[in-house]
């Protein structure tokens, strides 16, 4: 067989494979769409069923009383046809979707429906799977439906090689650990992203009964910079006053990104005693740190801080700083905390200040 013949044969095989590939693509598209349409229809039915028949029964019941017997009618359970795996998953998705939009007693009702229909067993099964994607799905379901699992079951995922799984485990741990929701900070070896922090904030806001953590230790001793930044932001969000001393220690680090986070946190925590230190360090700071100092002083609103802000506005020629200070001063003036009339203000500065004063 000549080389040309072999080449043409290979080409013919690829043509056949391309034809097959095209046909398979069409088949998958058609099948997936059919399945999706069926699932959508079923999900709409389940949604309706939950809203019309299941939730009203729970609402009638006194939530404070512990009820051992399931409240859902056998008839409704049959109607749900929950033996089917796809339907069970659809039911979980429906409950999560509803749970996302409600809080308080309604959220608790959805949680109880989840448990009564034993959908939690499906989620628990998922965290035992060997596939990390399924583990993540299980952890998300349990977290979002507020079904607590033991710390040990979650902590083993913290050692996973997959960052998505570690991240899901941290969120779950934070949600369910009653004593120390941030204990995982001790073991973190990889960097935390701001995205994870956004999730932590959300969980904190949803779990008002969580034990207040002491972030001071991690801020002082953690060797992972992202943990330190994360803890400073959490301390500021939680108004954790005891963290102020540790944060203050970071005003002297050589990493200016870290320093600017520290200054920002001190501002949010209203650490008034750091005012002199901040003013003293101001001249030899990079611009992001200077802006954070001005922001912090704007929160302090002490006579000294306001005087410094006014001085900076008069002497600075940097556009960013000028605008930052003007914004802060205008806010103070609008709020009645500052009554400032400067007869000799440069025309440009006067225009900037006027702009911020008129801003809604």
């Amino acid at each position, binding site marked *: 067989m000549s080389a040309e013949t072999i080449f043409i044969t290979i080409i013919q095989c690829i043509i056949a494979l391309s034809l097959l590939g095209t046909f398979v693509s069409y088949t998958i*598209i058609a099948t997936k769409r059919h399945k999706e349409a069926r699932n959508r229809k079923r999900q709409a039915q389940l949604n309706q069923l939950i809203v019309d028949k299941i939730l009203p029964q729970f609402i009638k019941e006194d939530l404070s009383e512990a009820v051992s017997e399931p409240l859902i009618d056998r008839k409704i359970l049959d109607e749900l046809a929950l033996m089917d795996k796809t339907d069970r998953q659809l039911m979980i998705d429906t409950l999560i979707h509803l749970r996302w939009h409600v809080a308080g007693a309604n959220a608790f009702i959805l949680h109880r429906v989840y448990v009564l229909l034993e959908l939690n067993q499906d989620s628990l099964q998922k965290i035992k799977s060997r596939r990390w994607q399924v583990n993540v799905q299980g952890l998300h379901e349990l977290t979002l439906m507020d079904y607590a699992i033991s710390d040990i079951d979650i902590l083993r995922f913290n050692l996973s090689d997959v960052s998505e799984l570690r991240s899901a485990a941290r969120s779950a741990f934070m949600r369910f650990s009653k004593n120390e929701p941030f204990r995982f900070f001790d073991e973190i070896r990889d960097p*935390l992203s701001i995205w994870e922090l956004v999730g932590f*904030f959300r969980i904190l*806001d949803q779990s008002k009964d969580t034990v207040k953590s002491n972030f001071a230790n991690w801020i002082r001793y953690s060797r992972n910079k992202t943990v330190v930044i994360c803890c400073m932001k959490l301390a500021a969000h939680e108004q954790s006053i005891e963290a102020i001393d540790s944060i203050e220690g970071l005003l002297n680090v050589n990493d200016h990104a*870290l320093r600017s986070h520290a200054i920002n946190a001190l501002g949010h925590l209203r650490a008034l005693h750091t005012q002199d230190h901040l003013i003293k360090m101001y001249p030899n700071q990079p611009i992001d740190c200077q802006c954070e100092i001005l922001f912090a002083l704007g929160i302090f609103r002490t006579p000294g801080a306001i005087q410094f802000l006014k001085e900076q506005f008069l002497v600075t020629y940097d556009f960013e700083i000028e605008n930052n200070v003007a914004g802060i001063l205008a806010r103070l003036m609008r709020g009645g905390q500052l009554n400032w009339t400067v007869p000799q203000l440069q025309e440009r500065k006067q225009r900037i200040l006027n702009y911020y004063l008129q801003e809604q």
Partner: protein
Amino acid sequence: MVIYVAMAILSYKHIRLYFWKNMGHYTQNMISSPLSPGISVIAPAYNEGLTIIDNVYALMHLNYPLYEVIIINDGSTDDTLDKLIEHFALKDVDLPYHERIKTLPVKRFFRSSDKAYEKLLVIDKENGKGKADASNAGINASKYDYFLCTDVDCILHEDTLSRLMRPILDEKSRNQLDDIQVIPDTGYIHVEDNQRRVIAVGAPLRMINSSDVDNGVITRFRPPNKILPRFQELEYIRAYLLSKMAWSALNCVPNVSGGLGLFDKHIAVKVGGYDPRSFAEDIDMVTRMSVYMIQNNKRYAIRYIPVSLCWTEGPQNLKVFSRQRVRWARGLVQIMRLHWHVLFNTKFKRLGMVVFPYNFLFEFLAPILELTGFIFYIYLIVIGAINWVNTLTLLCFLYMFSVMISSIAVLWDQLTERHYRKTSEVIGLCLTAFAEPFIYHPLIVFFSLKGYVQSMFRQKLVWGNMQRKGFSSSNTKGTSSST
């Protein structure tokens, strides 16, 4: 062929990973988070009087906690500015404006006196003969650290900002970070954090022709009925979901489209923003941003997400389409000429060894090679040296392979999101792939070559008007235009 198959597999894996990552509804976390960084949405407008109000409304109803909308009236000769002033109760303001990027003179700034539109800032400037100059004015006036560049006639998904912001917030350094060194009483040594920084994020653009739009919201998605936008829809799906997703997985994204791109303002300003002289200002700026990062030893990434977030009206007739493609081709020549030093330069790492060589071989040289092959075949026919059986087999291979790749791209799109209501619409779009090699592909090659020839002879490029049908509502359709 191997490259296309590899890209298809890689993009599939990346798409799957994206969806696993987004399983926990976490995008919604951003909507209420105090940590969400601010974004300035910049949309230049030139003679968009017909649709401007609906478009601005759509931009002001995005799901994101902290953003502003900056509309730049780029010297419109129609009633674009008047309509904006009247509808949004705009009043002149003396905005502190710092011209960090040089632009043509800015005449006035407007803000609304109605608190409901406090996010809106309108800039009136002299016409800059292109989108770049107007976008630069928007960047100068923006107050947040990130800016989203779009066209005012584009319709954005309500979650566009939170979805595009996620890759920026989620980027992690793979290396263990340095220990923190506290050096009290020794002054400050300002060190730079060398964590990988996402400098730009993009998402697929799609065609809005034939879809139903109500008050700036798409109520029914349809593949375009007209043949040219339909081909473009298929081309866009292929380009974004096969090519760019694969490049994103390898951190080798060559370009973030001018229609929808989220950029790091600090880096964009450092490189001088968009170049108003460029015919492909988006590729040019992304390339300069990448070069800047590499030359300053900073680690960076450019990311793409697989979810379609932006819908735009594609050229409906051959004249407008030709103008667009000729401009793109000339832009590519410009990019190759301007950044020639990057090509096969190991100093520029992936940019020099992967991104640019790919652009050079598969984008720039492809039309020239195709034309050469075509002429060679004609020569063989003329001298009677052609083996018809083998030739037809090879042509059949090219044809079937291109159809399969397009079909896979549509499949990936369907696995991502199902915008079209009917299966017949999807299959109809797939079937378009059978006609593409005969109609659309020769057109693209022809217009690219035309652009190259115009570049060689340095002919003046006419930006012209993009004839728009408008999509505000079914009974108010007319024609508007933009650069």
